[in-house]
Structure formats: C-alpha cells, structure tokens
C-alpha cells in the first residue's frame, strides 16, 4: 500500500504568488484605484487639543473654483447617526462617548476632523482647507492620565461625567466581595514573602504605523447603493457599520478591501469616522469621493498605542518560586472616540495577558483607563500587551537580581510546564511545550559562555549584556473572547469552490496587508487536492463575494481561516471520493483514496483512478447516474471554531554592548526560539518574525509620539517620529521548536500578531545586564541613550 502523502506543499518555502505584481508596480492599493469623476476630499482638522468651536467660516474656501461642498459637524449631525453604534461597540461595561465624524461643539484632540472639503482637484481641495476659518475658544487640555482621574480635573466628554472610560479587576472572580478577598490574600503573601520587588513601569506612546496611510474611495448609485474601497482589515464589519450609521439597507452596501494593502498591523482594524463622512458625501453629491490620508494626518490620528503606567509588584521566595503578582495598570486612552476598540480594549486585553507564560499561584490585577485630549489609542501589533509584557519581563529580571539567580533560570523554573493551562486571569493556553522552546533558546544563547565573555570584556572596560524575554501570544481569537471584547465572532470562514477545469477559487472575508495569504492558502488547498498552488486563486476582503470574517486581526490566518479552508477542502474531498467510488463501483470512502499529482487514486488498487479534473468536471457538469442522495456541484463553505482558545509561544535573547560615555548601545545578537505550530511556508513565517522583532525594537528605542504641554502633537512627520532604518537594526537568528496544535486540522498556529511584545523586555534586560556593575534598573521606555547615560551618571556620582 503506497504511503499517503498529501503534504507536498506544507513546509515548502514557495515564493509568493503576490510578488510578481508587486515587484513590477502592478499592485492595486486603494489609492491606485480610479473611478472617473471622483472628487477629492481633504479634512480640516483641529489645531487645538481641547477647545470649543464657536463658529466655522467656509465662505472664502467655497469661492475657489471647483469646490463641490464643504461639510461641518453642525450640518451633518442631523443627517448622520452619532456613535456609539452597537455594531462597533464591545460588550464591555464602559463609557462610550457620543461623537459624529466631524467635531460637534468642541474639539478634543489636536488633529480631530472638524470640516470636510470636497473638490474636483486635490490641490485645490488643500487650498480650500486652508481657507476654512474655525473660531475656537481654547479650553484647558487634560494630558496626564493620573491628573485626568482626579476629581478636580476638567471632564472631556461631559455627558459621561468622568474621564475614567473603563476599569476592571481581572482576578479574584466576578463580585466585589470575592475580589476584595483575593486582594487580601495577595496582600498577605506580599507581607510574608522573603523577596518583593515593586516598581513603576512606564511605556510611551508608540505603535506600528504602516507604510500605506489610510484611504477610502466611495461610489454611490441610487439603485445599487454604496460601494466603498477601504484600507481596512475588517471589511465585513465596516460594511455593517456603514449600513447602520448611514441608514443604508445592508444589501446595498458593499465594502472592498483590495487584495493589495500596504500593511495593517491593527492600525487598519478600527472603524474610523472618516469612512462615515466620505460615504455620506458620495451619497449626498451622487459622485464618487476619494480620500487619501497624508502621513501628517496618519501620525496625528492613528497608530498611537502602548501609552501605559504599570505599578507592578512581584513576590517570590529564595528558591526562585514566583508567589504572587500584583499590578495596577493605568492606560492613557486619548479621547476614546474610535469605533470597535474605543482605545480601552487594548489595555483590557493587555491586562488579561499580563501574567504571560508563568505559573502564578495568586494575582491581583487591575486596570483603569483614562480619557485625555490626545488621539484615541488604536491597535498595534502586540495588541494591548506591549506595556504589560515590558513591565513583567523587566520586573522578573529585577526579582532574579534580588534573589541572586540568573533571570533565565528564574524564568524557566516558573514557566508553565503542563498544558493545557488556564492562567490566573482565565486566559486558556491550549497547547505547546514552553520548556522545549525555552531550552532551544538557551542552547543557542550559551549563557555560561557569554558570562565568561562578559567578564573578559569588563576587564577591558567594555560593557556587554544579555537579556531574555518570552511571550504567550494569541493564535486567533475564540468567539468566547471575541464576542464580549468586540461584539464579533471569532470563527474562520472560507468558501472553497471547484470549477469544471479542476481549478479552485477560495473566498475569505478577512483582509490581509502583506502576510502572503494568497500563497499560504494556495499551498494548503494544493496539498489537500494534490494539485498545484498555481491552480488556486483566492479572493479576499470583498463583502459582495466572501463569507463573513471578523478581519485580519489577532493572528486569525494560521489558526482559524486556514483551518476553515482545510475543512472545506476535506468536505469536498469526501464528496469527490463518494462519487469516484460510486462510478468505479468500489466500496470505499475518502480515507481509501489519495489525492496527489492531479489525480485521485484508489489505494487498494491504483489502477482504479481518475484525473482530478475529470472527476470534478463530472460532478459539476454531468450530474447524472448519481450516488444515493447526492446532488451535483462542488462548493463548500465552512465555519471553523476551535474547541478552545489557542496560543503560540516564543522566546527572545539579545546581546548588547553599551557605551558608558554616550549611553549608546549596539545590538550584537538577536536569537529567538519559536513555537509556531506546523509551518506552511517557512519563508513567510520567517518574514513575519523578522518584521515583528524589528517593529518591537523600533518602538522600544526610536519611536515616540510626543505632545507638548498644550497638547500639540510634535511628531506628525517622519523627521520627528523616527522609525528604524536598515542601518539601525540587527540580523536575527530564528530558531524553531514547534509543537503541532492539536486543535486545528493542519496543526498550524496563528502567528505574528503578538510577536513584538517580548522585545522591549529582552532588550532592556540586556542593557541592564551590561550595566549590572552599576546596579542600574531601567523601568521607563523609550530606551534612549540620553536616559541610559543619565542613569550611569546618577549611579557613578
């Protein structure tokens, strides 16, 4: 009996199907799409962080030739429903501020949309935007989250009566009584623990802004309704939101996220107010309307995350066992007026993920989220848990130092060893072997050897250090978390459609931005059916043709979507096998056939076979002489929900050299160990890891969104918001220590989303390790030479 092999394409580093068009300039991003007659929109945005709008004078602007319309908040507030709307509102208890797509009565952050100019020429639209004169009465801006929560603070959203948009306790059960009891127990542990470390960990405002800014192109037809091309990770949600808010019956709204998007990283996952007003303008003017965001607008409005204070304490014993964890988190939410996430959902998830992969016997974890006059937090890769990961990975090192133990040994001792496991915040870790990953890392890191090198270096007056970090990351988001968190389902959905020529079309409702889904999907389908990836075409992100998908978020591809694809393929294979068995008069079902090399072969007698194409054609085109109870056609739509929420795990080690003179540091080595489950395309997985780690480094060191004391944004261009360039970052030594996921049909895991989170801890730990002779502990980001140098000065004075 021949070996059944249907994994020809699994694990293959297949060059991507996407590449040819992207390499030859034939990609079609939203801003490349042309609808003849499209008008151009430019936003007038607030110059102040907090101010009343006294009046808006558009008369001079309207006089320019080619101006079609200028919208203001006062005009449209009677025409467009305000937010919040249920479709983009989490099922979490919070204050959801009322807002329209253009500011009404007042502005609440520097850069908030105030008016919209729509013109025939995009340069003229810019000219006109300058001529819109807004009369403001400045109000005192609220810029500090701790100040914002004080009773004497001005309230930003007056209707809500508070600047505390959200707060929650994540441990000790659901009632106040049980939480108080838990807090008391935790306090007792801290009272008695031999080792306690307490510190304040601050992460700055930064995020993963993609290279392609946002854009939307809307077309309106009185019969067909609204067609919107949007740079979005979640077209199906955008469609429902536009339908609800603009009162357009859902069947008349189509949203298309083009197959080419210039990165998302979470920044294109919220439902943005600009989409609402552009769609409204198209309907109002009965002309296509186009808005392409400038980088200036982008840096002022989106991509800002991670802004958080964590007051953290860890209790441990002298043998190196973690006893308890206590954390009070305070997130600076900005104004909170962005749909789906409202800013606070990120720190919410960050608090859930705070315990990381360690066994905490007890914990008291709380979070408050404060509204301030800054741009609303928007998701960034390592959604919500970059700050908490930094805090815990740093605090763990500080505890290890106090015990007198190697931080890596301290970690290993306390890593969860037996999965499945439910964390102290009720996060479910479905599968994986954390110790195998850790040991793989440690072997590569060769710590004993490094300690010798470090000693030698020190004798030469050189300061090198090694730092570790790790992260349990989401592999997709199960409905049981997704529904309360974002009022959306977590299932993956795929339609697999065979055609009479044996080619395959796949339809998926999520909308990737560079992760190579076309190729990965084609490899899986090709493996399942024994055909070539060239024979497989995927359509993504078009609400008119794809099943519902909550979006390309949370590492849903390798976890949920590809699983739905595999199951849909297997459903069709079952049907194909049934037909073939019937036609060949065999008592056989799908496990008796092999799909390989474009053929379907009976394993009991390989003379009994058919070409894949002819049996497929037979089922679709010639549905006569049928097996019992069967119909023609080969089309399957599958919804995949995993049995339990799933995770993946990774660990980082980095080696740095620090200059005492300047506080500058150089990353000498970056080594990783990854459990990514079964790998479909190693090229793509490697690329995901590199990108995530460099984003983590860039966020940790270079990037910072800065507001001055009046709430003015000082980082609205790339001259001021500094992103790492190629000369700033190291090569990365990736290593894999995988455990197939038992809950997905292919054993794959969703990867890449949370990956940046272990980077800030690992890097800062390395710098602190290098400066150990001075007893320096860094607890504030960004990790900058001037701050490091100052710490050295303070320690040596």
């Amino acid at each position: 009996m021949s070996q059944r092999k249907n994994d020809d394409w699994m694990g293959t580093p297949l060059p991507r199907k996407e590449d040819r068009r992207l390499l030859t300039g034939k990609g079609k991003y939203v801003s490349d799409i042309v609808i003849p007659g499209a008008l151009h929109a430019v936003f007038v945005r607030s110059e102040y962080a907090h101010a009343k709008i006294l009046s808006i004078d558009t008369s001079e602007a309207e006089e320019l030739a080619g101006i079609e319309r200028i919208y203001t908040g006062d005009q449209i507030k009677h025409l467009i429903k305000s937010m919040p709307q249920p479709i983009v509102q989490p099922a979490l208890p919070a204050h959801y501020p009322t807002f329209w797509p253009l500011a009404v009565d007042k502005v609440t952050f520097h850069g908030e949309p105030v008016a919209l100019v729509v013109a025939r020429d995009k340069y003229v639209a810019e000219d006109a935007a300058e001529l819109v004169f807004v009369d403001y009465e400045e109000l005192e801006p609220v810029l500090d989250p701790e100040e914002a929560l004080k009773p004497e603070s001005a309230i930003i959203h007056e209707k809500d009566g508070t600047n505390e948009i959200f707060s929650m306790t994540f441990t000790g059960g659901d009632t106040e009584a049980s939480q108080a009891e838990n807090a008391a127990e935790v306090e007792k542990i801290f009272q008695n623990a031999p080792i306690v470390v307490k510190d304040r960990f601050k992460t700055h405002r930064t995020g993963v802004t993609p290279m392609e800014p946002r854009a939307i192109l809307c077309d309106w037809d009185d019969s067909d309704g609204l067609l919107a091309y949007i740079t979005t990770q979640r077209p199906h949600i955008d469609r429902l939101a536009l339908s609800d808010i603009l009162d357009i019956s859902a069947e008349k709204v189509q949203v298309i996220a083009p197959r080419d998007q210039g990165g998302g990283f979470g920044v294109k996952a919220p439902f943005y107010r600009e989409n609402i007003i552009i769609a409204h303008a198209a309907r109002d003017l009965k002309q296509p309307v186009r808005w392409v965001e400038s980088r200036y607008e982008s840096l002022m409005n989106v991509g800002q995350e991670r802004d958080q204070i964590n007051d953290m304490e860890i209790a441990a014993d002298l043998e190196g066992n973690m006893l308890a964890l206590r954390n009070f988190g305070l997130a600076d939410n900005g104004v909170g007026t962005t749909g789906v996430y409202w800013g606070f959902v990120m720190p919410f998830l960050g608090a859930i993920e705070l315990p990381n992969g360690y066994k905490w016997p007890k914990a008291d974890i709380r979070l408050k989220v404060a509204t301030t006059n800054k741009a609303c937090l928007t998701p960034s890769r390592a959604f919500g848990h970059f700050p908490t990961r930094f805090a815990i990975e740093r605090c763990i090192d500080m505890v290890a130092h106090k015990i007198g133990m190697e931080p890596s040994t301290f970690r290993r001792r306390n890593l969860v060893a037996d999965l499945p496991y439910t964390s102290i915040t009720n996060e479910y870790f479905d599968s994986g072997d954390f110790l195998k990953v850790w040991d793989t890392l440690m072997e590569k890191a060769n710590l004993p050897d490094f300690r010798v090198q470090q000693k030698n270096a020190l004798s030469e007056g050189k300061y090198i250090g090694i730092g570790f970090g790790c992260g349990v990351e989401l592999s997709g988001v199960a409905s049981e978390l997704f529904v309360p968190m974002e009022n959306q389902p977590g299932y993956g959905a795929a339609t697999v459609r065979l055609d009479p020529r044996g080619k395959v079309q796949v339809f998926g409702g999520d909308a990737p931005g560079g992760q190579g889904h076309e190729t990965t999907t084609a490899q899986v389908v090709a493996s399942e059916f024994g055909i070539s990836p060239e024979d497989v075409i995927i359509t993504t992100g078009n609400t008119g043709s794809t099943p519902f998908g909550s979006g390309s978020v949370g590492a849903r591809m390798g976890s949920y979507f590809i699983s739905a694809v595999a199951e849909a393929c297997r459903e069709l294979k079952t049907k194909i096998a049934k037909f073939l068995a019937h036609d060949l008069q065999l008592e056989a079902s799908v496990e008796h056939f092999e799909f390989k090399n474009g053929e379907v072969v009976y394993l009991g007698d390989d003379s009994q076979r058919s070409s894949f194409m002819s049996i497929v054609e037979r089922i679709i085109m010639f549905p006569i002489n049928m097996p019992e109870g069967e119909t023609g056609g080969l089309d399957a739509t599958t919804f995949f929900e995993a049995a339990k929420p799933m995770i993946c795990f990774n660990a980082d080690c980095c080696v740095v050299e620090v200059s005492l003179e300047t506080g500058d540091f150089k990353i000498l080595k970056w080594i990783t160990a990854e459990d990514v489950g079964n790998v479909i395309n190693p090229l793509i997985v490697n690329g995901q890891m590199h990108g995530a780690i460099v984003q983590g480094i860039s966020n940790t060191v270079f990037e910072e969104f800065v507001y001055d004391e009046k709430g003015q944004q000082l980082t609205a261009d790339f001259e001021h918001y500094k992103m790492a360039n190629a000369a700033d970052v190291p090569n990365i030594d990736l290593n894999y220590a995988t455990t197939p996921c038992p809950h997905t049909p292919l054993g794959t895991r969703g990867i890449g989303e949370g990956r940046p989170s272990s980077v800030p801890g690992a890097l800062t730990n390395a710098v602190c390790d290098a400066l150990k002779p001075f007893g320096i502990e860094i607890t504030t980001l960004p990790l900058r030479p001037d701050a490091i140098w100052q710490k050295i000065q303070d320690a040596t004075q």
Partner: protein
Amino acid sequence: MQAVKSRMLRPAHIIDLQALSELKFVTSEKGLLTVGAMTRYVDIVSSDSIPLELIALKDAASRVGDRQVRNRGTIGGSLCWNYSAACTPVTVLALDGAMNLISPDGSTRQVAADDFFLGPLETARNEFEILLSVDFKLRGSKSGSAYKKWGLVTDALPVIGIAACLHFDNTDCCDYARITLTGLSGAQRCLEAEASLLSTTANTEEIAEAMMIVCSKIPTYTDSMATADYRYQLIKTIGLEVIEIAKKRAFGLG
C-alpha cells in the same frame, strides 16, 4: 522642498538651476579648492579633487540624509537654506569657506563664512543674489579636518554636529583651529575653545578642556531627542572624536 510642500514657504516663482552645468564643478588649483554651488553631495563624495585637508567636506556630504537625497541635494542649496541642524553649513564654517555671490547686474562679491551664516535660516545673501561657488584656501601640510554628528537614527539630522579644522606648525603645535557646532541654533563658532587649543599639541586632555569650555559658553535644551545634559555630553564626546581625527589627518595618520 520640505518648506515649500508644507506651505511654510510660498514662493511666487521657483527657478530650477539644475540646467546651469557651469555651477557644477569641483576644482583644485593654486592652493584653492572651489566647489560650484550646484555640486551635488554625491559629486563631492566621489570627487578626486578634494584634498585631504578638506576631507571634512566628504565626512559631511557622505552622510546627509540618504543616497537619494545625495543624488539631488547641492552644497549651495544647503548653505543658502542654512537649516538649524544641517551638516554642510557647519563644515563649511569650520573650513573657512568663502561664498561667491553674483547679482543680477553681473557684479560679484565674496563673503566669508563667518559673515555669511547669520542664524538659522538666515544668511548674508541678498534677495536677488545667487550663490555661484565656495572657495576654500588650502593651508598645506599639517592641516586636517573632520566632521561628525549624532542623531537618534543612523545619519539623521544632527542633534549635535561638530566640525573641526586644525593646522599644526613645525613644532607640532596647533597654530590654527576652527571648531564649529550645529544642532542647537545653526552653525556657530566655538571661539574660546579654539583659542584654548592654540599653542598646544591638542592632546586628549587639552581637547577635553576645550570642549568643556564650549559647554560652559553655550546653552542647550531638553526635547524628546535628548536632554540638555546629554547634549553637553555629546558636545564633549563628539568634539573629542572629531578633533582627534582632524589631528590624526593633519599628521597623515588618519
């Protein structure tokens, strides 16, 4: 161009000088290096005509922006714009360049660097003058120069940039020193520091002392790129490095 696109500048007309190939040259003769105003950074970096003693010009030109910028940006453009944190003005000031300007009536005048750079975005060029070229007098042997900067990312605009030009006499004593600084408020001379190096051999201690003098005379500030104290530290460390390189080069060692 950044200023035009951001609408900070709103010129009624823009005249592109790229067709004036006669302004694009690097010539060295009779103890004088002359660089045409329209000479691009990439041309300066690849020029064989720049003598070793003026190599600071290459230090600066090779790290402005990125290679796309260097294919396009010119020495004249940078000098006339005189941005507060730019590599070329501070280097030309250290090298005591002399700007050759022409008026609409054809008359020309020369303005020494010390008189040309007036303050950030301000030069002595009159509204209707065009910069033709920059002259650099060669001092001959035992002259050396260097430029270095620090920014948050590689080759970023200088938070602190320092240029130095030194000459040593036949007793190996420094008899000429120009030390310039940029990043705080445009290209400026560090006169007291220069004076402190004269008649010394410019050893490490003497250089360190000179940079301490610079710090005592110049106010710094804190922003998100660096604290005020750190800027002083940068002045000290970059200053030491630059002057030592200039000295090494003066003695044919660097």
